[in-house]
């Protein structure tokens, strides 16, 4: 086989004129192939403007594309956001944290023309950037550190993948490399730890284990399904998973296409690569052996016990299992095992017992010319073959999909509003030329994120204010702000709320990386776990104040505080957080233990740093919580309250305000 498929395959342009395939159902009609996202990217012309004021506003091509569409709809952009708003917006956007009062003062007093660029560069270079943008990626790939399902077994070394993602963002790794390492790191290098950790990506899905007669074939089929579907939704932005049971109802993806993609994973097997040397392993075995013997003996004995005794014995068994020495460190990874290669068949209704035609690896037919054969089923390094096709600069989906994700996180809405579905049931791009322009630039710049962020963040489009004098015109013509006539206000994500509370209270522990932390939670929640002993609270209380990305991502126990603010369930790919508004959120922030504890700490901080003067306390509280000074009315209300009421209650109120929970 040639180095990559593109040297022998052509995308749409060639395909449109290709001969009809003789294989029934494998022909893609011109109409099917015409769908916008399957077409090669265009080289759109950057709109030009006649008036000086328009030219002045269009600071970079993004602005030109945005302004052209706004003007077509008889809309105009909002004025520029003020500096205090901008630094808060940028700091949350790039780091997930609020700016400190010192950072705000420094920015406000920097009157140089390069102040914004300097701020953006500083934030992009901070280690917190990777923690914020890594979380977006972890959402997308439904990262979790447990299996899910009943046992929800902990994956003790999955945190290494989380750190790998954070590191990759901080190092501004090329997206092409990033994907290669995740899909095929083990095929690239068996001995490079980073590669082995990255390819743990293929194991991130939930994993069913059950007692008794194991359904080995069913379980393998589920693993293959997980590996396949995530490629569709997270990397290609198509609902590939729909074609598992039948030809896709809306998009030109045949059921056969689905299983051909699955065939790239036929040899992939989970592997925990030991990090410990032989001596360490021997020492571990020696330590574990007596306990393991006890477990085996007890299991034998249990067969002859009556029920009352058995319940006690089960408890004893659990204790024994818990008393095994801590597992030795491993790399949570995969490898190819040709001997265990699963035969991949088209499965009628997705049922693993209902096998149809055997298939071998091949990319999606609609993106190939007709009649392209499958690769041999035993093609070496199959996942490398797949990812080479995915990251080929000519792949019409990959670059569009990822730049749209970046855009989505910056603006709250994508150019394509359905980031995981670029198919016919997805929404059409509001600015198709801009999307292609950004994707072209991204590819030309070597798939690097930081340049893309900077171009977006430096645009006047991004730096618009939320409020505009043309509000009612905008509301009537474009109530959803699809065309970006003002900046879209957003509520903080669950992690941002927790992290910001800790930061404002002066308690945030910025230590990065390492094994995940379990914080104290209500006994009732632990009790709801199938195995309550899984929840082992970290002994060092300073660990409890670490950033949320370092808290354990456990499928069967999400922190209620995070859940109530729409943290994803880690079962399936989450391209964009919901932002719901409901009473349990108010109950959590008013009565929950975290906000009350942080409010007390914030009150202490206000006394310590602003002294006894209520006026100064209110000013400082607003600077910490809202990144600005209070307005007259706010100050009046706050001071009125403080005449009779305790400072801690004022601090609690601050952590409940829109001015805290929203970024404008």
């Amino acid at each position, binding site marked *: 086989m040639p180095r990559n498929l593109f040297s022998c395959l052509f995308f749409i342009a060639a395909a449109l004129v290709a001969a009809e395939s003789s294989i029934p159902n494998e022909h893609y009609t011109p109409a099917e192939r015409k769908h916008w996202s399957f077409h090669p990217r265009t080289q759109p012309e950057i709109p030009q403007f006649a008036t000086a004021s328009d030219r002045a506003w269009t600071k970079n091509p993004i602005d030109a594309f945005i302004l052209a569409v706004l003007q077509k709809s008889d809309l105009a952009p909002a004025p520029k956001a003020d500096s205090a708003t901008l630094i808060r917006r940028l700091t949350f956007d790039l780091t997930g944290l609020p700016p400190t009062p010192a950072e705000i003062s420094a920015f406000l007093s920097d009157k140089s023309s390069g102040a914004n660029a300097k701020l953006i560069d500083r934030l992009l270079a901070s280690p917190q950037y990777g923690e914020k943008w890594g979380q977006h990626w972890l959402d997308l790939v439904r990262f979790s550190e447990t299996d899910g399902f*009943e046992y929800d077994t902990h994956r003790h070394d999955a945190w290494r993948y989380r750190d790998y993602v954070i590191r990759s963002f901080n190092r501004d790794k090329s997206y092409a490399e990033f994907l290669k390492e995740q899909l095929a790191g083990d095929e690239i290098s068996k001995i490079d730890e980073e590669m082995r950790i990255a390819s743990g990506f293929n194991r991130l899905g*939930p994993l*069913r284990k*059950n*007692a*008794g*007669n194991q*359904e080995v074939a069913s379980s393998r089929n*589920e693993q293959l*399904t*997980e590996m396949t579907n995530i490629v569709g939704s997270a990397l290609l932005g198509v609902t*590939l998973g*729909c074609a598992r049971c039948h030809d896709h*109802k809306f*998009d030109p993806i045949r059921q056969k296409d689905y299983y051909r993609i699955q065939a790239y994973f036929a040899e992939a097997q989970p592997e925990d690569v030991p990090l410990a040397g032989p001596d360490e392993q021997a020492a571990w075995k020696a330590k574990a052996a007596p306990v393991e013997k006890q477990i085996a003996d007890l299991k034998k004995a249990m067969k002859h016990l009556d*029920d009352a005794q058995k319940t006690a014995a089960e408890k004893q068994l659990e204790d024994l299992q818990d008393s095994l020495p801590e597992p030795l460190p491993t790399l949570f990874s995969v490898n190819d095992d040709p001997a265990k290669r699963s035969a991949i068949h088209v499965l009628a209704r997705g049922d693993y017992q209902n096998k149809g035609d055997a298939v071998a690896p091949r990319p999606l037919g609609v993106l190939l010319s007709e009649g392209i054969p499958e690769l041999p089923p035993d093609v070496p390094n199959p996942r490398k073959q797949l990812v080479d096709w995915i990251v080929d600069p000519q792949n019409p989906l990959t670059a569009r999909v990822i730049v749209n994700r970046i855009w989505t996180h910056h603006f709250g*809405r994508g150019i394509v*509003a*359905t*980031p*995981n*579905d670029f*198919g*016919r*049931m997805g*929404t059409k791009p509001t600015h198709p030329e801009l999307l292609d322009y950004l994707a072209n630039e991204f590819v030309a710049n070597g798939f690097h994120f930081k340049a893309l962020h900077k171009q977006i963040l430096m645009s006047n489009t991004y730096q618009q204010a939320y409020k505009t004098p043309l509000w009612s015109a905008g509301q009537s013509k474009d109530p959803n702000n699809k065309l970006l006539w003002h900046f879209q*206000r957003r509520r903080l994500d669950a992690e941002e709320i927790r992290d910001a509370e800790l930061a404002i209270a002066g308690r945030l522990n910025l230590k990065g990386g390492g094994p995940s932390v379990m914080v104290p939670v209500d006994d*009732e929640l632990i*009790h*709801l776990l*199938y195995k309550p002993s899984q929840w082992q609270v970290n002994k060092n209380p300073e660990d409890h104040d670490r950033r949320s990305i370092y808290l354990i991502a456990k499928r069967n126990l999400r922190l209620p505080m995070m859940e109530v603010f*729409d943290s*994803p369930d880690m*079962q*399936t*790919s*989450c*391209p*964009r957080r919901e*932002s*719901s508004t*409901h*009473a*349990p*959120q*108010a*109950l959590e922030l*008013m*009565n*929950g233990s975290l906000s009350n504890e942080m409010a007390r700490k914030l009150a202490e901080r206000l006394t310590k740093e602003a002294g006894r003067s209520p006026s100064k306390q209110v000013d400082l509280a607003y600077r910490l919580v809202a990144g600005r000074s209070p*307005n007259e009315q706010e100050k009046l*209300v706050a001071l009125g*309250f403080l005449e009779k*009421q305790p400072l801690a*209650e*004022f601090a609690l*109120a*601050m952590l409940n305000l*829109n*001015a805290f929970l929203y970024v404008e």
Partner: protein
Amino acid sequence: MPEHIRFTRNRREFITDAFCGFGTLALASMLRAGTVNPLAAKTPPKPAKAKAVIFVFMAGGPSHLETFDPKPLLNKLDGQKRPAEFGEAKYQFITSDPRLMGVKRTFKKYGQSGIEVSDLLPHMAECIDDMSVIRSCHGDMVVHSAAQYQLFTGRILPGFPSMGSWMLYGLGSVSDSLPSYVVMPDPHGALEAGQPMYGNGFLPAIYQPTMFRPGAKPVMNLDLPKGVSLEQRRQTLNLIKGLDQANMDADDDEFGARLSAYDLAFKMQTEAPAAFDLSKETPETLDLYGVGKEHTDDYGRRCLLARRLVERGVRFVTVVAGGGPGNLQWDAHDDIEENHIRMASQTDRPVAALIKDLKRRGLLDSTLVVWGGEFGRSPEAQGGKGRDHHNLGFSMCMAGGGIKGGQVVGATDAIGLRAVENPYHFRDIHTTILNQMGLDQNDLSFLHQGRKERLTEIQGQVIQQIV
């Protein structure tokens, strides 16, 4: 696992088709914003007989053979191999040389309908003329988690919305101080399918269940922190509202919604606890449910609480019987007698009390009570005295909510292995429940990942005999 791509929606898109659940945007702000009131309970699209569902979930899989489906032939074949004419079955644990096991329970005809019920359930037997017994239920999976997912969500994998979430999505909430979809787990611990089986799946988060906790204070964060008085909190609430209003436009409906959420939260905090307070019940009622009695106290309390919630407009309540280790569920692998006598002694009286109590209060007509587990149990013995999981034929019961009483639906074969007469799948149970609530499986759908998803994967049928 099939993909569940969360729909991209901003708040405006979201409220136009979504809101009606617990703790959502409050009425006042919506009216102020000039939008439709999404909080109001929706009128069911079809005539509805039931307004609420109480699912008394017998977790772990109660035996149909020891409860509602007498099989005298089993006793005759006790210890023998299954005759070939009954066909094959796959169990989770039983592997080699399975032998049929007779039933030690005795059955008696009850009520005017004369339906046979075993002596395990003497109290429920008294309600038999109000109940329909569906003896021909079947599901696709023989392991707990997958079967539980299918029972609750219609699919064998996590990530799909449960019945309760669909109900809330379709019908909205009539209570503004109580959550409208409640799950009361068994205090002994979790089940194999865990939290996702009760969840909202890909439906918006407002349709999620509220998991009640054991004890007198079942809802989280309704209590004030220690040392803070209600009067103090009222002041703080006013401060929050005052400060928010000092920095918002009058027509800002999103922030308006947040203000209303605070009002609602405060209302819940002050009013909901009364719903949880069983001390207002008469001694006779408490006694009916077995509150204060050794075996029935916990489940009796929870069933009584379910009635109090339904009285106050809650749509869907799941009261879970069984949790933690298998033997604390109906999962009688080791000894069917010991396990089922114990589980029945905890649940029979409370479930019967619930039906009787609803009936005498005139609530049974509008409240559908569903009894059942994720599967039944094997005609063959496991380890001599136990029974393994069994999904090919088992019993579920329904009462109230317009369901005809005194009915037996379908039948299993002579050893209770397979539903052979009028078999009904979980999807048919779901369709029937939806039907009683005035909903239709095809209309109650949610566009998700380009597909109109619904509760039933394959078209279900209403069990016409009982509606």
